[in-house]
């Protein structure tokens, strides 16, 4: 990555983050969002994180690979995240599987 591109990304992403957070400053009057917008926002995290996780687990090198340390690690991590909702435990279990995989 070129340094210029990195800094441009940093600035644009940061400005975008602040703009989203300060949105209510620029919204007029009632400050209520249309229901369909609220609904889209409700779906956003699930869609976004799935779009990022699935290729990283199933196709880390570009081709789909259904049997790998990553798939087993992710499977166990899903169970841990589901039962405990703990970021720390999820990372610990997932990384342990990948690191200890024969």
């Amino acid at each position, binding site marked *: *990555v070129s340094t210029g*591109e*990195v800094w*441009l*990304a*940093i600035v*644009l*992403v*940061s400005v*975008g*983050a*602040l703009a*989203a*957070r*300060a949105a*209510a400053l620029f*919204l007029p009057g009632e*400050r209520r*969002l249309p*229901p369909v917008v*609220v*609904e*889209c*926002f*409700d*779906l*956003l*995290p*699930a*869609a*976004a*994180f*799935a*779009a*990022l*996780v*699935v*290729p*990283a*687990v199933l*196709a880390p090198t*570009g081709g789909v690979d259904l049997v790998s340390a*990553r798939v087993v*690690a*992710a499977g166990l*991590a*899903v169970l841990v*995240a*589901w039962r405990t*909702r*703990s*970021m*720390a435990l*999820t*990372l610990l279990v*997932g*990384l342990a599987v*990948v*690191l200890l*995989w024969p």
Partner: protein
Amino acid sequence: MGPILLGVVPFATVAGAAGVQNGLSVTETICFSLLSFSGAAQIVSSDLLGGGADLWVVVVTAQVINLRFLLYSVALSRLLPPRKLLGRLGAAYLITDHAYALVEQRSSTAPRQRHGAATQWPFYLGAALAFWVPWQLCNLAGALVGSRMPTDSALTFAVPLSFLALLVPALVSAPRVAAALVAGVVSLAALRAPAHSSVVLAIVLGMVGGLLVSRRQRSTGATSIEGPGRVDG
């Protein structure tokens, strides 16, 4: 606060490490964290930049993840009494999932404090800063540790694992599950799309899938609206 801060440490550390592991310098990583104060967006951006994604894909994906702040912004503006512009910008910068959750919880358990709430601002700023300081410190620690690690170690898997830890608790309604499923399938099917644009396509189609399921639910009479999805950082 305790359990919340416990979650900050690993996530902020992963965010810091993800930066340097993807070719950003320690300075760039720290500035990214200070300026954006958005863990998920920072990790995604670093990951995509390191993977050779186009700048627009990086910015759009990060912005999509940050759009949830808009929801908090609107909700907080109803809970917090008005302030001068600068104070509001500062408060806006400090918005996180956790700070929002705490203020929301406080005003719903103590409704009398909602109006004329002179104590609401100190409470919000306290909660937000109690989150900001350890976040930045752990980010720095992650960047320093990450810069001493080989970039091809198994630890790079920490990034997708952290997303998984955010994804799983969000899957509490049928529309959200549908959104995740569609997004996951599309992200694989469109893997060869240029410069990681598959991520953007997958998110958009995932949301459409989720909306369709929620429409169908509503037409059959089931309720489908949940609270806003909560995500760390």
